[in-house]
């Protein structure tokens, strides 16, 4: 009894330490390098894993409790949304194309994050980071699943999402997000953490997640909004992990600084190129806009990110060099992207359209230096052509950047009427790039980026036609065959919004709700 009374209560930090690090031991029957084989080859030096500061202290009992509570609420809302035909509450059916982009471009990445953090959560010799990574791993499968479950109902009523897993592995523009995450997952565990934990989750998350979630909120999409907000509380943990990782690595050894700097430069650019899709979503696909891409970049990267990099300056880390070019592109990015998708609407799994007059006005007010001069005339021309029955769908294939895999549609920094091309000769081949930054990434690791599965090359090599099709047969229609390979239904999943089944159905279903039958 006395012993019990004298027992000293552990402080929170000590208690968490015995619940995690205290479980670990130094092995003697097997060598450390055999148990943790992936931790040395990147050249990052860690002298003392005990210096790791746990970014949050969550034991499993508390984790289950909090998360189950969140799941209960989330699924109750999803159920209600589904039962009440909540999809008919969105501003207009064009909005649903943002959902298609999300489920086929982003949700599969949540899954890869889950596997990637399981890998990192096994790979580090430090017990602190292992536990933190595993918690993120299980959170990420949550994100993947809650997104699929929320969007499942949209898939029942609208086109383009019906085979999103299949599409993610094949459709040309989806190789942009896919190759981004494949790149991170195939990097070493430290680079993965800098790429995803820090650059993606900490620096860029507000430019990815927030636009979709607030876009959903503005456009009456309760389902997407709810999983978004529910995931935000997990994100808070992920962000603190991302920041702790970077500080920990930098504090361990000065030789780590240049390696980390290269990774930050690379992953900021890689992430930014993926955000091209978000930029056009914000400026063109939301019937009710939240803010422009340019405003978002200025607030979330230039202001918030600027403060962050000022903070990291004490470690010798500087603002990624690409920030200068991104600033020059911010007046153009979303317009160039939307123009591209407008052209390639026959080969995509969502609809595109030309902005109406009010929307053009909004764009002009948000982009006073570029819209009226460069993009409005283009759109006016396309609108006129469409009115005459000449809605243009490009049927030729674009050249892709070897690294970011975006068609080479971007313009020279500071010269918005001149397309930017870069190339490198490597071994016996020529490789093409959208920018100096993608080119630099290639030159640092050519062996990696020559492996890229470039959708256009693959189509030309005949690898993207359904089995049994014969490209030499008379009347062979390559685009039609590629669509079959993508499992996209021509006339339903693709083409202009104006002529889409989505538009027609949505109008009819909403009509039923507003009329007395």
């Amino acid at each position, binding site marked *: 009894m006395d012993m019990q009374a004298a027992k000293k209560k552990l402080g929170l930090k000590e208690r968490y330490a*015995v619940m995690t690090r205290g479980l670990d031991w130094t092995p003697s029957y097997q060598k450390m390098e055999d148990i943790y084989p992936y931790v040395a080859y990147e050249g990052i030096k860690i002298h003392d894993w005990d210096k790791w500061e746990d970014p949050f202290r969550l034991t499993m009992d508390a984790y289950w409790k909090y998360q189950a509570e969140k799941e209960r609420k989330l699924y109750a809302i999803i159920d209600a949304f589904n039962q009440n035909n909540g999809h008919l509450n969105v501003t207009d059916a064009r909005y649903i194309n943002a959902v298609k982009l999300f489920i086929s471009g982003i949700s599969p990445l949540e899954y890869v994050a889950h596997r990637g953090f399981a890998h990192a959560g096994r790979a580090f010799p430090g017990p602190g980071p292992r536990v933190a990574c595993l918690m993120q791993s299980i959170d990420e*499968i949550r994100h993947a*699943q809650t997104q699929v479950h929320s969007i499942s109902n949209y898939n029942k009523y609208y086109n383009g999402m019906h085979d999103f897993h299949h599409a993610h592995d094949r459709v040309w523009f989806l190789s942009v997000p896919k190759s981004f995450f494949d790149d991170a997952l195939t990097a070493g565990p430290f680079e993965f953490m800098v790429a995803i934990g820090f650059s993606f989750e900490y620096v860029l998350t507000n430019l990815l997640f927030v636009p979709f979630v607030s876009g959903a909120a503005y456009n009456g999409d309760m389902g997407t909004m709810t999983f978004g907000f529910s995931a935000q509380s997990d994100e808070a943990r992920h962000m603190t992990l991302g920041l702790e990782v970077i500080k920990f690595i930098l504090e361990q050894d000065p030789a780590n600084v240049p390696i980390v700097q290269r990774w930050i430069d690379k992953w900021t650019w890689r992430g930014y190129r993926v955000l091209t899709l978000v930029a056009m979503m914000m400026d063109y696909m939301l019937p009710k806009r939240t803010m422009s891409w340019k405003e978002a970049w200025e607030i979330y990267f230039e202001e918030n990110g600027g403060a962050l990099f000022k903070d990291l300056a004490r470690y010798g880390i500087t603002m990624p060099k690409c920030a200068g070019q991104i600033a020059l592109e911010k007046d153009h990015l979303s317009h160039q992207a939307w123009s591209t998708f407008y052209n390639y609407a026959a080969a995509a799994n969502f609809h595109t359209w030309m902005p109406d007059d009010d929307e053009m006005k909004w764009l002009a007010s948000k982009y006073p230096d570029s819209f009226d001069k460069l993009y409005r005339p283009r759109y006016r021309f396309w609108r006129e052509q469409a009115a005459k029955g000449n809605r243009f769908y490009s049927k030729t294939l674009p050249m892709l950047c070897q690294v970011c895999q975006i068609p080479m549609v971007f313009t020279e920094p500071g010269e918005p009427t001149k397309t930017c091309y870069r190339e490198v000769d490597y071994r016996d081949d020529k490789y093409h790039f959208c920018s100096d930054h993608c080119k630099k990434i290639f030159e640092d690791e050519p062996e990696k980026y020559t*492996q890229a599965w470039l959708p256009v090359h693959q189509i030309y090599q005949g690898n993207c036609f359904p089995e049994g099709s014969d490209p030499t047969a008379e009347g062979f229609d390559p685009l039609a065959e590629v669509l079959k390979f993508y499992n996209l239904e021509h006339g339903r999943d693709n083409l202009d919004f104006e002529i889409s089944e989505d538009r027609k159905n949505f109008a009819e279903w*909403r009509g039923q709700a507003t009329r007395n039958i």
Partner: protein
Amino acid sequence: MQIDLRTVSIKPLRHTFDNIARRIGADKPASRYQEGTLDMQQEANYHYRPTWDPDHLIYDRDRTAIRMADWYSFKDPRQYYYGAYTMARAKQQDTAEANFDFVENRGLAATLPDEIRDTVLALLIPLRHVAWGANMNNAAVCAYGYGTAFTQPCIYHAMDQLGIAQYLTRVGLLLGDVASLDAAKQAWMEDDTWQGLRRYVEDTLVLRDPFELFVAQNVALDGLLYPLVYETIIDDVLSAKGGTPVAMLTQFMTDWHAETRKWIDATVKTAAAESAGNKTVLADWIVQWRDRAAAALLPVSRIALGERADELTTEIVQQFNARMAKAGVPL
């Protein structure tokens, strides 16, 4: 204008995603387990080889000797997707918390006979390291296995094992103090009793075949350890000697084992039923790891069972063999 959308009755264009419809038929809605599991892992056109394992694709069927025509033949009988999993565990956690409260509030730990308390500390607390190894191993199976149907339950299992290591830590702190944790760790590192088991765990930490790792950890080691320690020693032998409060503190583990073995058995059964080749590989692994696990657990079980250790361990092995035969792998 407020529109009452509930009154609208519209016919859906489709019941679920195509990948699910291809598997279950297009005429019915899919469950959340199915939509959250089937084909979730990327299947094709990976862009780069892992720099940490250039001989394999990102997700690669060839990391294991087990061959499956379709890795989505595996089904978790509990149908756990994240939401179902966390809600189930939160409920068990409520019970565990109530049990800990009950024991703490009534000072039941102090009423334990010294002999029982010492036995429990000596036996249970080093097992937190075993659970920690199981956490790492299941993280590895999840990371390097193929197909979400097989890998998904492993991340849940990994987190469960972390939870178990933490419950065991709490038992140590309740019946003893931080010094008891240290003493148990020292025993784990140095005492002969524990060296066979520690070697077993460390040897599994270097296994590269994710399915063999699944067998060594979840099938063989835990398949003997849980029935031996939680069902036989704690719920039976020690309870009879006044150790019931301990059984309350480890109820989570007993219930958890009863639940998770359904998934483990289903996994073995599906892999074995796939081909004679799989069955042979599985039988080889299971026999090899079972024998090592039984030998490693014997000195540990002596802590509580003394002379009866051999007899009861043999009994547990026989039960284990029967269980495997039922799962399609007669040993």
